[in-house]
């Protein structure tokens, strides 16, 4: 019955926008998106505008199975897709902008001014896209020059002194975009009496493309962002009550990111050759009150200066029944990280002295550290390098498109660590004066993710002109690496041990701490088994998929027990994700409907942290459901068009930790947009999170205490744009 109704509705609908040819170059695949044997969510310029997609966070739930909670600061970029993700280190979703792989997760979150197209392919895309595209790959494409002059400018203002403005100018073979974003902040720090997450950001994009008529075509894409923001609006959760944000330290993040990529395309008689090279620079500086209390416990600074170079060449040829693609990829990244932890007076007393003195009999004496601040300096030089060789062949055979691919991917790294604790101490009553004491901790640690063999086999069957069925088996992986955030814990332990040894005192129960050699974590890998169907007919597009992901060495952020101050990535045994996704896009006449839904059951298959067995429990932070629905209507008067749209996005429930005892209910966020469009300009009013409910969107522990952050409240924005 339903197919019949859909068929009737489709037959009366006008055609939808087709994907402009320029967008196709963002992809490495040899076949058009609608012929891919993988689910793809596509956002065209009209979608980006209508849904207010101004950054990656706005893709949550709009793309099935995707959740990118917006908390912390721009470096956070926690991405959960199909039950896989983590808030630290390597992402599980690859990101390509104008064909350039963004190699640093700290650069993922940026203002999308100038972005004209977004597509997210779900499931492992490792064969072509390589490392970290284990649960999917997001491909973004900025505006391309077409030889004519265009000008687009907009400004949008809203609550909390939100201001976004941007201008995109196209002339000749150039497109230049500049954007500005300001926000006064949403969350008040009760202790300081100020808003703790203001934001100021600038972005600049320049794209040049050689005239595409020749056989050889060069292009260059430069993207730079500069931002200064507050952040880390985390409130203490105690006895079931979430307290307001209240801390005394600095919470800020500054980032300069510059990415430049050069592209080369050669069209031969029977082949094409594509080359991409990029240089990616990132300089950032984060300051965090890591106890998030008004007490002077401890703070963290993390300043990174990284440089990455990538290069890729792909050779494609086209024969009647064989579309082979063969490529090589290599990269090198150096990251110089300065990450000192500073203990304040309260931290020295509660985290260090209290722990030390509780083991020393009173009649013997006690340890005293007179310093007002205790600095644990940690500097890291991390080299990461990798190379890959890949091949994928598509065989169009009648109604079948069979694909087989294989990627050999090697990644390794070396970390130089140079840590130093610097303090004065005195044992009372035996020592008559304070003694200066230093504990250095230095070394070099290699790491290897080994050779990853990443195969892929898929088949797509065109059951009719409009319906295709597909299935695939593929493997993806997320690189391993080093836990730098646990070094402060290591050095605290090393300092106590060294200090006690210097005193000639030896504790029976020495607090256990990992050493540098334990800070490596392994790559995570996943086999994905998937089947789906796609219906594309004129103005109607629907897609449904079922998948099963078998994840090994799941990377999970854990908090060492007790009053530890760090956190670390660990490989938590095995997990699996079982899910179903559906997406629908339909434009009947003046209406436009879009809906997406996903169910994901992501659980540990085996995970025992030594104290508890979490096997069978839900993976933390992963919503069981994501849903999005929007309806839009357009009516044209003589000189003006009226656009009305309403949407709702929802996700949840989810578990906040491995035990599954702390849960978050479903979040529902309704939105709306009203716009009046004239020939060259448009004015709109849109509202986000109209109910104003601020659900919890992030949970963590610090020094044994629990904290949450909240979603952003309701925002009403008024905007205007001109287009020439």
């Amino acid at each position: 019955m339903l197919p019949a109704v859909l068929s009737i509705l489709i037959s009366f609908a006008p055609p939808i926008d087709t994907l402009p040819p320029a967008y196709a170059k963002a992809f490495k695949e040899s076949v058009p998106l609608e012929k891919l044997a993988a689910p793809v969510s596509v956002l065209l310029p009209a979608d980006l505008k209508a849904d207010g997609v101004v950054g990656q966070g706005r893709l949550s739930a709009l793309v099935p199975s995707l959740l990118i909670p917006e908390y912390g600061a721009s470096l956070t970029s926690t991405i959960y897709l199909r039950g896989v993700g983590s808030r630290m280190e390597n992402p599980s979703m690859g990101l390509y902008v104008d064909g350039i792989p963004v190699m640093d997760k700290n650069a993922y979150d940026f203002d999308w001014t100038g972005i004209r197209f977004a597509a997210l392919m779900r499931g492992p895309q490792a064969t072509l896209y390589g490392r970290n595209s284990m649960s999917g790959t997001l491909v973004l494409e900025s505006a391309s020059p077409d030889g004519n002059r265009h000008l687009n400018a907009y400004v949008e203002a809203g609550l909390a002194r939100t201001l976004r403005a941007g201008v995109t100018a196209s002339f000749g073979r150039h497109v230049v975009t500049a954007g500005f974003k300001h926000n006064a902040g949403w969350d008040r720090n009760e202790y300081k009496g100020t808003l703790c997450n203001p934001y100021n950001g600038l972005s600049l994009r320049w794209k040049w493309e050689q005239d595409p008529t020749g056989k050889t075509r060069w292009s260059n894409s430069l993207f730079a962002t500069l931002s200064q923001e507050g952040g880390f609006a985390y409130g203490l959760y105690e006895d079931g009550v979430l307290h307001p944000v209240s801390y005394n330290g600095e919470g800020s993040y500054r980032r300069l990111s510059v990415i430049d990529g050069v592209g080369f395309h050669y069209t031969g008689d029977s082949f094409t050759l594509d080359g991409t090279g990029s240089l990616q620079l990132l300089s950032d500086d984060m300051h965090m009150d890591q106890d998030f209390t008004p007490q002077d416990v401890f703070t963290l600074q993390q300043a990174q200066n990284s440089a990455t170079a990538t290069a890729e060449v792909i050779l494609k040829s086209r024969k009647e029944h064989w579309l082979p693609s063969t490529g090589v990829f290599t990269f090198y990244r150096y990251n110089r990280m300065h990450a000192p932890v500073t203990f304040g007076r309260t931290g020295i007393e509660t985290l260090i002295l209290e722990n030390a003195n509780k083991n020393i009999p009173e009649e013997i004496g006690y340890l005293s550290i007179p310093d007002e601040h205790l600095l644990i300096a940690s500097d890291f030089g991390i080299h990461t390098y990798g190379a890959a060789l890949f091949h994928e062949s598509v065989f169009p055979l009648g109604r079948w498109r069979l694909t087989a691919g294989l990627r050999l991917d090697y990644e390794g790294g070396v970390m130089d660590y140079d840590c130093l604790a610097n303090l004065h101490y005195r044992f009372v009553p035996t020592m008559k004066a304070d003694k200066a004491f230093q504990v250095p901790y230095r070394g070099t640690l290699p790491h290897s993710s080994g050779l990853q063999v990443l195969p892929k086999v898929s088949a797509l069957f065109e059951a009719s002109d409009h319906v295709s069925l597909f299935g695939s088996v593929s493997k993806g992986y997320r690189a391993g690496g080093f836990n730098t955030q646990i070094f402060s814990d290591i050095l605290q332990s090393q300092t106590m041990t060294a200090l006690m040894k210097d005193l000639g005192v030896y504790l029976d129960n020495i607090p256990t701490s990992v050493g540098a050699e334990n800070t490596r974590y392994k790559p995570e890998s996943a086999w994905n088994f998937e089947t789906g169907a796609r219906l594309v007919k004129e103005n109607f597009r629907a897609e449904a998929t079922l998948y099963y992901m078998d994840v090994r060495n799941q990377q999970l952020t854990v908090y060492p027990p007790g009053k530890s101050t760090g956190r670390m990535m660990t490989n938590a045994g095995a997990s699996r994700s079982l899910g179903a996704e559906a997406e629908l896009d339909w434009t009947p006449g003046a209406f436009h409907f879009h809906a997406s839904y996903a169910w994901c059951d992501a659980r540990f298959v085996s995970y025992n942290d030594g104290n508890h067995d979490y096997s069978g429990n839900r993976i933390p932070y992963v919503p069981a459901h994501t849903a999005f629905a929007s309806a839009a209507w357009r009516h044209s008067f003589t000189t003006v068009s009226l656009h009305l749209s309403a949407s709702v996005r929802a996700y949840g429930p989810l578990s906040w930790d491995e035990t599954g005892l702390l849960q978050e209910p479903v979040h529902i966020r309704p939105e709306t947009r009203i716009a009046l469009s004239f020939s060259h300009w448009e004015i709109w009013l849109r509202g986000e999170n109209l109910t104003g409910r601020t659900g919890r969107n992030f949970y963590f522990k610090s020094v044994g205490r629990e904290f949450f952050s909240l979603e952003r409240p309701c925002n009403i924005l008024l905007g205007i744009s001109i287009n020439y």
Partner: protein
Amino acid sequence: MKTNKLFVALAALALLACNKIEPEVIVPETADYQGTVTVQYQGEPYDNENIEVNFTPSEDGKTASITIFKIRFVPQMPVTIDVTIPHVGLTATSTEVILICDEVIPLAMGGEFPRYTVTNLTGSIKDGSLEFSLNFGDIPTTFKGHQLLK
């Protein structure tokens, strides 16, 4: 002539006297020992097994410092500590080195540790063995151990 005979007789006597061999006195040397420290806790002996002790004589060989590593004075102590007993008097003979110290404040935890003032220390080093007894404060303590091979 008479005078010459007397001279020869004295010379012979002197030569005989030189040929009488005196026993050599032991020169105290730095050494590490391992053994058992026994402390009296509530009237009962409490043994600290495999305790290492360092013996370091002064340059003139008249005194020495003795460091006892990782000693526990009472079973309930959650820590072990290093204690150094300075200024222990030495008397060397041909067969042993005699240790003696009436009273001295030991060193521990970065300074003087008067709570466990050492009194009545007596002991000896003989044939590669070190033995001594003393009071740490009011805790009677003994050590018996053998020299560790270098």
